[in-house]
């Protein structure tokens, strides 16, 4: 205990020295600490933005119920960007400048988070990103920006390698969205194609917002692909699977985590049975998933509970990491301390994904991936071993 106190006071002293007279950091009062967030809360992408914000809320409610961060209650400020990049930039500026946030979580989609990087870097505010982990966010590493998750590219590589090992010498088909998300998926796929010398017979590219996939799936069928990587998000994957059912073909299919939400299985119907998915958060059907829902239930409203999906878990984990880092900074947390504590994050258990670690110069938690498989009879994803 004494040792702990000593180190705490040492830390405190060093903070005092390093920060000089401006001791009180923005976003902190005697009773409150402000955490900001910008997400798409309107329009179709609200599906991920709202879910992620619910995850942040659960972690914050949990911390507040336990007395807050060293006695300070966390105030959560959430801004809507409607998935419009200019509004994301403004939202982040507002959260930092007007609401005087102490730290940030989020932030919106991949293109949006890339666009706000200069703003975050200039401000120096501790930030944990959880919604759209893409390489540009941690390469090169930025002092104050941490990313929890796994890159789309690695995710695809993991999935494709798994499917390739399971189905050797088969013909492959791939379809991706025509945006930065689609490109990353394609890059990941291509790297495995080269390495494993896969035979790709169909490679499609659909327009964002496309609803009718009849001609694309017909091309896939015509090409004779036996393993199919569906790079849609949610509605697109459903439409593709139903189209394949109509065409009476059932290739081994893999989907990616942005499309891995449970209602998808119900809508795909029997056509969705047995599709593979890759993710770094636990499926809701597993022990960890059930425990998470159990924990979330009393902390959120009924409407919010219905909005929970995998993004809630990744959001929860990020918020947990941030809160524990601020907590470790003791009575007078500062940005410098929070950043260095975030850096020291080592094997933090969140219960929803593998333990999270960062390190000096490491701003990306590089989560462990797992393959899961859809089970139509229970409408859930289950881990595959």
């Amino acid at each position, binding site marked *: 205990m004494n040792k702990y106190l000593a180190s705490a006071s040492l830390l405190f002293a060093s903070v005092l020295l390093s920060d000089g007279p401006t001791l009180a950091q923005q976003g902190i009062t005697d009773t409150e600490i402000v955490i900001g967030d910008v997400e798409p*809360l309107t329009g179709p992408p609200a599906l991920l933005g709202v879910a992620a914000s619910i995850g942040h809320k659960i972690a914050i409610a949990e911390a507040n119920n336990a007395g807050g961060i060293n006695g300070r209650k966390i105030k959560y400020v959430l801004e809507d960007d409607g*998935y419009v*990049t200019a509004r994301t930039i403004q939202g982040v500026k507002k959260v930092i*400048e007007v609401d005087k946030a102490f730290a940030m979580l989020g932030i919106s989609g991949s*293109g949006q988070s890339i*666009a706000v990087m200069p703003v975050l870097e200039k401000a120096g505010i501790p930030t944990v990103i959880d919604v759209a982990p893409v390489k540009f966010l941690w390469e090169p590493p930025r002092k104050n920006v941490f990313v929890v998750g796994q890159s789309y590219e690695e995710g695809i590589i993991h999935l494709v390698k798994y499917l390739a090992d399971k189905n050797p010498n088969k013909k492959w088909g791939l379809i991706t969205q*025509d945006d930065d998300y689609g490109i990353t998926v394609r890059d990941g796929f291509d790297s495995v194609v080269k390495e494993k010398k896969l035979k790709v017979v169909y490679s499609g590219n659909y327009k964002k917002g496309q609803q009718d996939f009849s001609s694309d799936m017909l091309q896939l069928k015509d090409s004779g692909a036996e393993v199919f990587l569906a790079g849609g998000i949610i509605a697109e994957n459903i439409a593709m699977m139903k189209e394949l059912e109509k065409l009476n073909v059932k290739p081994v299919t893999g989907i990616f985590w942005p499309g891995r939400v449970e209602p998808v299985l119900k809508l795909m119907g029997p056509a969705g049975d047995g599709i593979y998915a890759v993710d770094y958060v636990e499926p809701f059907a597993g022990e960890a998933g059930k425990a998470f829902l159990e924990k979330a239930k009393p902390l959120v409203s009924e*409407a*919010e509970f219905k909005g929970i999906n995998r993004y809630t878990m990744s959001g929860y984990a990020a918020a947990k990491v941030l809160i524990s880092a601020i907590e470790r900074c003791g009575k007078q947390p500062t940005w410098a301390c929070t950043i260095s504590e975030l850096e020291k994050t080592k094997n933090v258990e969140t219960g929803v994904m593998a333990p999270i670690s960062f390190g000096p110069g490491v701003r990306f938690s590089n989560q462990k991936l797992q393959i899961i498989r859809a089970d139509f009879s229970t409408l859930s994803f289950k881990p595959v071993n």
Partner: protein
Amino acid sequence: MRTGDYKQTYGELVALVDSPPVWLWSVVLVLALIGAPYALNAYALSFVTIILITVVGALGLNILTGYTGLISLGHVGFLVTGAYAYAILVSKYQMHPLVGFLGAGVVPALASLIVGAPSLRLKGLYLAITTLAFSFIINTVILEARTLTNGARGIAVQRPELFGISFDSDVAFTWLCLGFAIATLFATLNIRRSRVGRAFVAIRDNDTAARVMGINLHAYKLLAFVTSAFITGISGALYGIYLSFVSVEGFPFLLSIEALAILIVGGLGSALGAVLGTVLIVLLPEATRLVFSLFSAQMDALFSTGAQELKSMLYGLAIILFLRFQPRGLVGVWHDLRRTWVHWPLRY
């Protein structure tokens, strides 16, 4: 005391401003805007920047829709073309930013020539339809022309350095936008005063009469369209620099609608209207937030359940209500106020 609007010479009719105090107040406003970055925080400043960038685009559309009376439903197409032209020239080929800005105007202008030449021969809503189609087609073109545009990856854009001045900081960038906005304002006001501008308005008010007066309808409509695309493209370049990252994603179709809403709310056919409309539409989300916070301090609980959508609904409502109850827009309100002020206590 001012007694009314008596114009005795043609020169007075086409004067840039109708009374000397307007000059004074304009200078005050410009000085205030130059000083603004020092008084405002980064969030408030971002609104100023967005307003200035949007003013450029709105003034561009105003030439087409306000002066000439033609509707474009796809002006975002020119915005994105301008942004890409700048990004490709400056970020990819390391050209001088001024060349970039020139390209950002010229490339959309060329595109508008292609779109406008066939569709402007027809009367009615046809330009609206072709521009709508154009804004979708151009996105596909950009995504397919990977070698030039990086496809869906987008292009990162740095803040420029012009005449030895770096516009990297938010403050300096606001000044750059202010410069462009003032230049555009003068340009459009002068176009309106010129022979060409009067031809545009004649076409809008009565095209048959305009033709009788010897105005080549097709040529002048095309000229209005090309000028409009040129200015919009420059606004697109500024917008791209502001976003620091140019991709198709950053330019949603909604921006086309927003631009039209700005003109309607501000008052069609008036440069002042375009400015006022921009201010209102850009600040509308912030204003609704204010209204919301008046009703209840505890809106947080509602935010996740869809109350955010209420804000976009208010936006649509604003368009409808303005058209219904104040078709002359904010500029109409302003004129009414001014008249009341000048004539008080008399009514006329």
